[in-house]
């Protein structure tokens, strides 16, 4: 009889920038001053848009909107790593990532305003339409990455999803395929501790989501999701590995949503003020600001300029959105198939 330990596993955690904005220089990713400013600008732009969209919803100028405040670093950091030709599979909360990936803000508003055309990715980037049903986009990223591998192309496929999605079979099936076919995919799980109101303890008894990678034979790492440098670094390494044929990485961005689930939600019903405040101290934008001040990359004047520019840009996009023509009724039949079937031709006549 033999009884012995046949394998030991470790789960890595990465934080580069601590809560006070102090960076561990040994871990600091290679980023030029210009790139750090770009990351900051994108996070400010994202937050400005997020605030504006919330108020537009309250004024009835758009429909339901999904906020992402608090998750700027976990969205912008990974998106910033990607090349335009790479593939991104966003979910409904990935608004910050979409902005970083050149999806025009007026189109995001167009979608939230009830016009499906807003979902269409600009032609120069490969952004998939956001997934509405939780986790169903994960297998797409794996298939897409698999196609890149089969075609000997170096593109990676990156998918965003939340902690709730890890409870679904899609999570298992996608990571399992990713491991078996060793595809160039990157899984970004933004673990913001809640799936609407349900806490992470109710999604899994595992201590981390990162460790679940082990069971699929792929890399996994938990990252401080409010640290944009750590998010960037982990994603960059995952992308390098993917492009080098070393397969998929699961990145757990340990974070918190500093807002309600959506404009229809009230998080006070299920989260305490105390908990919210404790996470507010880790907030990603201020953290980066502190770092940039210490490195003389940012002063009050620069901050004012960036904030003002973002506000102006968002206002301009709101104006474009509000002047977009409404879709024609026939639009809903237009893309059902590559061309109208005889049946749809008849229905188009009914619509007229």
């Amino acid at each position, binding site marked *: 009889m033999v009884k012995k330990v046949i394998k030991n596993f470790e789960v890595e955690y990465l934080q580069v920038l601590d809560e006070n904005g102090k960076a561990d220089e040994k871990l600091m990713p290679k980023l030029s001053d210009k790139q750090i400013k770009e990351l900051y600008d994108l996070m400010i732009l994202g937050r400005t848009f997020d605030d504006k969209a919330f108020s537009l919803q309250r004024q009835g100028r758009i429909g339901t909107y999904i906020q992402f405040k608090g998750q700027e670093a976990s969205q912008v950091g990974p998106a910033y790593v990607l090349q335009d030709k790479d593939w991104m599979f966003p979910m409904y909360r990935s608004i910050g990532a979409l902005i970083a990936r050149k999806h025009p803000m007026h189109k995001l508003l167009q979608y939230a305003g009830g016009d499906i*055309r807003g979902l*269409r990715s600009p*032609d120069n980037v490969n952004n998939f339409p956001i997934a509405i049903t939780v986790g*169903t986009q994960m297998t*797409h990223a794996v*298939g897409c990455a*698999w196609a890149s591998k*089969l075609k000997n192309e170096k593109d990676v496929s990156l998918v965003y999803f939340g902690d709730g999605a890890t409870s679904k079979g899609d999570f298992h099936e*996608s990571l399992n395929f990713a491991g078996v076919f060793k595809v160039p995919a990157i899984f970004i799980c933004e673990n913001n501790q809640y799936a609407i109101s349900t806490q992470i303890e109710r999604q899994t008894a595992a201590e981390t989501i990162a460790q679940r990678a082990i069971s699929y034979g792929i890399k996994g790492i938990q990252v401080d999701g409010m640290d944009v440098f750590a998010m960037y670094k982990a994603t960059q390494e995952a992308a390098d590995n993917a492009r080098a044929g070393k397969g998929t990485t699961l990145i757990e961005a340990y974070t918190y949503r500093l807002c309600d689930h959506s404009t229809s939600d009230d998080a006070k019903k299920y989260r305490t003020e105390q908990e919210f405040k404790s996470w507010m101290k880790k907030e990603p934008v201020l953290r980066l600001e502190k770092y940039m001040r210490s490195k003389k990359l940012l002063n009050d004047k620069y901050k004012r300029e960036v904030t003002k520019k973002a506000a102006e840009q968002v206002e301009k996009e709101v104006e474009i959105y509000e002047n977009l023509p409404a879709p024609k009724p026939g639009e809903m039949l237009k893309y059902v*198939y590559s061309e109208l079937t005889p049946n749809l031709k008849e229905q188009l006549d009914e619509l007229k």
Partner: protein
Amino acid sequence: MSKMNIVEAVKSALGNELKRDKRVMLLGEDIGKNGGVFRCTDGLQKEFGANRVVDTPLAELGIIGTSVGLAVNGMRPVAEIQFSGFIYAPFDQIYTHVSKIRTRSSGRFSVPLVLRTPYGGGIRALELHCESVEGHLAHLPGIKVVIPSGPYNAKGLLIAAIRDPDPVMFLEPMRIYRAIKEEVPEEPYTVPIGKASVEQEGSDLTVISYGAMLKQTKQALEKSDRSIEIIDLRSIVPLDTETIINSIKKTGRCIIVTEAPKTAGFHNEIIARINEKCFFSLEAPIARVTGYDCQFPLAKLEDYYIPDEKRILRAVDNVMSQ
């Protein structure tokens, strides 16, 4: 030309397309080394390699979900779901994404995916191996639903499906996989999707069927002395309404034969279209000869479930006597 059954015709189509277009790949459970549980892909992995004829993990949702990603990124995946009853797990993907991506991306992305699955009963199989899922699929805008009835059209329709820019659900009539042999060219050819076939012309009555039921229907009708027009739908989405209507205008009577359950099945849509377009040509109510509204039964009862000669001929008498 050589004599082929449906299994051989499907394999011939897949082989032709794998050779013609390097974007085409097959994926599914046991389709590579084993050549598929019905042998529809036998030898193809050996010929085209394990990257193009892929044995996947045993996960139907994963097969269809990854096929979406493969298709969007330029491949032409032909996914096999081993039995039609296993399609319910990937229904989530079919409903949520396969059918909607073209619309949701306003035409930027599309899913040129073929999902092959054997469907229907009659082989004394286990539970959930014999489902007629075409009604569920037809109710979902954005996908095409194609059902061959014999070797020649199986090959031509499958090649058309693989070349089609839209997602195609390709339901293979399991119980006649080896029951019919026809002359089938070795070379590639297409049979158009969305066109029905008038299998036999007649003036008294129109009988509409598809898939495995067509053979049974034809055999039964040989015993009738009526002049019967027989239509093989071949595609149910898009449906060739025109061929149906032209026939009803001529005959004034109609029977639809299918092994799907009676209630809310696709056959009812055919009746609705006839009512809309040529109600006043009808001499008698349209009759349905279908499966029953119950679970598809196990071996001992399946012959009672699947419409047989007696039920088909009884329907002919009923419709003709009105």
